[in-house]
């Protein structure tokens, strides 16, 4: 348990070494980065083992170590203001660690091939190690401040990696947009943290805050406000409804980056935060959880619909990520931590698989636009197969992991939430089926639309296909974790569900009815998709013409981007120019310049008193004398 701090430390050390000596290392030090993340991955297991040994029955004892980073005593009653650095390991952390380290390892191996020949190859791996280090710190942090530090560092790394090819104007803009949007979200997070600290037990330690809240320390409206502020941070980071604009644009970055950051790890940080803070959400009045739910739902619906219209394969997958994140928040909204964490665990694998598949397509064909792809299956059989598995998992077809996790979410949504929520989820299943099959069909099947691209395509090398295979396997197998027996087998007493579940044990029952409905709907969606978009996709075209206005609406992403851009240009920049003008003209020339002018003019007038003529001077003297004597006599006598 004590070596838990090593997990983030090794990638951090790798980052420092690469930063300073990177260019001089053989192969620019990519092996060092991979070794570091590999080591972290390996270290997760002893941690898991420790956790399981100490487990007595269903409850697991969380390990925590902390070192004082900074402290000074307040002159009040012996209080001190402390900030610590420490880690806190509990089931949720383990799940997150597993997902992050594994996917990062896969992605970095994949990147060796994908990024070969790039001018800043070394810098790529340096940034990747920094990202890994900060994500792991975020996950392991035991207090809110260290979490916030990791949170911001991850945001900065995403800025670096999205803007990796900063020569491209769009990449630079996308990076800036991502960082600013997440930063606006983080404003909420910071306010939330400080509010919790203010009324709370004068510490940032998460567990103490939760314990304090559970004893009713905070008054509920205050706690709700604090929690909602923190949720704002999660919104920004996980690209939920109001602040989701940056995620589609984040595809400007290299695909492995998208795979790692915008699928498995960073975007999921928001979910982790809410999961970690769920007890607070529950203590606060229900409005908090409803907000989470509503936001999740809206994101699900928007992303699903937008997925239909997007033509760039990476953007479609990005929308699918938004869709899944929405689902996770819906799960959290109905306080189903297991379902959320499970879906997160599973989603990490198949979404990474999808992205890396798309990456291998792009790597092979140098082309991202669906309209110019098609019929690649023959040229790239392995990628096509793996992509198929990923698509099916995303849609949630029976044997694959997507299905099990999605069902968990549906089950909780059905039990806890009103019917409307359940119906919306079901409709989203259909649409997911639609656009995922569209993606698969348009890329891999039927006649190639652009012969040049088709000829150029070739199956990617081992370095790309092997990670695909591993992820494909995981995508299929991971689902079974749901069954307790499988959990037992792997040495988890009472199954994974209990491991992750915080409250009392809850065996997994198989809800036949939800399973059937979901499979039917998802399958129906897929088949409809197949029909619509087969061979020349005439049918899809005709449907689009009929619903033309909706299609354009979707294509322009509900014009949300334009609204934000308008807001920024006019309100924010406009205010800036007005304030700058006000500052220069009113405060500066008017206020400061004005008073100086008064002095200058006073002097100017007084100057002409000096007429140069003697009688005037004599008159001045006499008037001075008279004034003096008269006032003196009047005043004093």
């Amino acid at each position, binding site marked *: 348990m004590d070596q838990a701090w090593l997990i983030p430390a090794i990638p951090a050390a790798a980052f420092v070494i690469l930063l300073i000596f990177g260019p001089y290392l053989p192969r620019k030090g990519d092996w060092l980065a991979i070794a570091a993340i590999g080591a972290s991955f390996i270290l997760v297991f002893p941690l898991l083992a420790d956790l399981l040994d100490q487990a007595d029955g269903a409850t697991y004892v969380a390990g925590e170590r902390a070192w004082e*980073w*900074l*402290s*000074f*005593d*307040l*002159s*009040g*009653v012996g*209080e001190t*203001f402390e900030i610590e650095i420490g880690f806190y390991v509990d089931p949720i952390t383990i799940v997150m660690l597993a997902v992050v380290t594994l996917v990062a390892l896969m992605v970095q191996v994949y990147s060796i091939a994908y990024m070969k020949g790039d001018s800043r190859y070394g810098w790529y791996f340096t940034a990747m190690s920094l990202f890994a280090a900060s994500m792991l710190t975020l996950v392991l942090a035991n207090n809110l*401040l260290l979490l*916030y*530090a990791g949170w*911001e*560092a991850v945001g*900065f790394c995403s*800025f670096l990696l999205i*803007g990796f090819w*900063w*020569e*491209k*104007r769009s*990449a*630079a*803009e996308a*990076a*800036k947009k991502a*960082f*600013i949007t997440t*930063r*606006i979200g*983080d*404003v909420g997070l*910071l*306010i939330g943290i*400080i*509010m919790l*600290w*203010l009324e709370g037990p004068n510490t940032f330690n998460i567990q103490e805050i939760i314990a304090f809240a559970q004893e009713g320390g905070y008054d509920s409206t205050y706690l709700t406000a604090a929690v909602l502020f923190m949720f704002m941070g999660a919104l920004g980071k996980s690209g939920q409804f109001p602040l989701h604009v940056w995620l589609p644009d984040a595809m400007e970055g290299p695909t492995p980056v998208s795979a790692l950051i915008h699928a498995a790890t960073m975007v999921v940080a928001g979910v982790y935060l809410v999961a970690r803070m769920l007890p607070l959400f529950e203590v606060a009045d229900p409005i908090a959880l409803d907000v989470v739910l509503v936001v999740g739902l809206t994101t699900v619906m928007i992303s699903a619909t937008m997925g239909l219209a997007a033509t760039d394969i990476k953007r479609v997958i990005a929308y699918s990520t938004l869709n899944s994140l929405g689902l996770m928040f819906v799960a959290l909204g109905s306080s189903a931590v297991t379902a959320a964490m499970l879906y997160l665990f599973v989603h990490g694998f198949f979404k990474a698989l999808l992205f890396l598949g798309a990456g291998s397509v792009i790597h092979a064909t140098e082309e991202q636009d669906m309209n110019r792809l098609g019929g690649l299956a023959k040229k790239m059989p392995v990628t096509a197969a793996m992509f198929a598995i990923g698509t099916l998992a995303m849609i949630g077809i029976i044997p694959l992991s997507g299905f099990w996790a999605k069902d968990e979410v549906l089950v909780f949504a059905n039990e806890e939430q009103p019917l409307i929520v359940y119906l919306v989820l079901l409709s989203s299943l259909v649409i997911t089926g639609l656009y995922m099959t569209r993606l698969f069909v348009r890329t891999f099947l039927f006649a190639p639309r652009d012969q040049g691209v088709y000829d150029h395509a070739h199956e990617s090398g081992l370095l790309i296909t092997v990670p695909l295979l591993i992820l494909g396997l995981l995508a299929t197998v991971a689902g079974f974790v749901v069954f307790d027996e499988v959990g037992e087998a792997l040495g988890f007493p009472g199954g994974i569900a209990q491991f992750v579940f915080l409250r009392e044990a809850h065996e997994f029952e198989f809800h036949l009815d939800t399973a059937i409905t979901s499979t039917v709907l998802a399958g129906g969606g897929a088949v409809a998709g197949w029909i619509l978009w087969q061979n020349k996709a005439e049918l899809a075209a005709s449907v689009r013409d009929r619903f033309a206005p909706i299609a354009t609406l979707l294509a322009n992403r509900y014009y949300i981007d334009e609204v934000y851009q308008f807001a920024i240009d006019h309100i*924010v*920049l406009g*205010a*800036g*120019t007005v*304030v*700058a003008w006000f*500052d*220069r003209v009113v*405060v*500066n020339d008017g*206020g*400061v310049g004005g008073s*100086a002018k008064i002095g200058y003019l006073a002097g100017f007038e007084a100057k002409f008193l000096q007429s140069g003529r003697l009688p005037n001077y004599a008159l001045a003297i006499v008037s001075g004398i008279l004034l003096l004597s008269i006032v003196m006599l009047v005043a004093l006598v």
Partner: protein
Amino acid sequence: MEFVLLALIVIPLAVCPLFMLIPSQYPQLSRYLAALAGGTLFALSVLLFAAYEFDGGSGLRYELQWVWLENIGFLGENGITFYLGLDGIGAPLVLLNGVVIFAAVFVSWNIANRTKDFFVLLFLLVAGVYGVFISQDLFFFFFWYEVAVLPMFLLIAVWGASSEFKTFARTKEYGAMKLTMMLVGGSVLVWVAIFALFVEAGAGTYDMTVLREAALDEDFQKVVFPLFMVGFGVLAGMWPLHTWSPDGHVAAPTGVSMLHAGVLMKLGAFGILRVGMTLLPEGAEFWAPVLMAIGVTGAVYGSISALAQTDLKYMVGYSSVSHMGFVLMGLASMNEIGVNGAVLQMFAHGAMTALMFTSVGALYDQAHIRDMTQFGGIAKPMPRHTAFFTIAGLSSLGLPGLAGFVAEFHIFVGVFEAGYWWAGVLGILSAAITATYILRMLSRAYFGPLNEKWAGLKEMRLGEQFAAVLLIAMILLMGLWPAPFINRISETVEMIPGIAG
């Protein structure tokens, strides 16, 4: 160690005549002398910072008291004494000054015309700043405060640069004159306040440790504190009186604006803390809400107007106004966390702005324009420069792991603790706006496709790079391991009367 403290003032003053002796045909010689002097000052500052530890008493270490004027006229027992002493708040700022002067010397390495006069004035400025940070006597506090302002006019008027903008022009003489006049104008208020304080205390001495004990009555404090607040506020870039800072920086040469924004603006805030809040606690308490309001306006106002600037130096100028707004907010929170945050922010902002000015200066020296809209993709020809500027930008927008965050976090916590939740929210918002204008500038000027016109740009000079590395070291030191700073500052802040728990 006392004489190390004395050396901080003596070296810069002693080096001035030495410069005079060097014939002006050998600018290189005067540059080496400047580097040597800068180096020794830096070393001494680091030594002092490291050696300082709180010893229980009044937190004042290495005291050195020479009677200057005593028992003459209105002056009683040790009336005016040349009283040097280093305390917790002074130590980090002395370190900051040492770092910034050492960096400034290297940045102004290629000042060609009248190099030795430049360095004479620069070191005079530094002597003034050191004097303020370590003098415990109110007379000498004001004496060095004015010495620091003295060379500003010539530094900007002679070596500065005029600039034409579409709608208005800012000649360097205008910038220099406005800056000097506003600072000295501010110091008039301080002067009057010192007179009133001396008469009211009736102790016949300017020794601040004695004046601290003098129980001044409440109404007097309420009347005199605003004088100190506004008087020092002008130099601290307080909101309505801040207009000299952007104009001054645009006109000033790089080295001077580094020292100026990096250290001189801290003099104002330091003044409010050391003289205003320590000697007049009730007054400070009474006026705290007003100072908070001004601080917040400054912060938000500064960051919003920085958003609209196209000139790089104007942007950095307004960002300094915004960050100094944070400092004032920290001071106004009147509780220990907030004031600690304010002192940390003074140090952090000092290092950040100095780094920003180094980079902008380096760019300006080669490109001779500062309009960021005309640049594009200069990260290609100047990668290191971009890295330095990005680090400075990130620290100013409060990325954890860099100095900015540690300071701003304390200020926000302090402000919330003191109950001004509206100020806290606005403050954090202005930090977000800072992120916007910094990143907008970075993406527009540095990233994106390379504008062919600037293909010829070369990397920063070695001297500038050394300066930048030095400053980054400070930013990272405070960002990653702020304990040494906090321990020193918090004990002394605790001693200040009127600072709540």
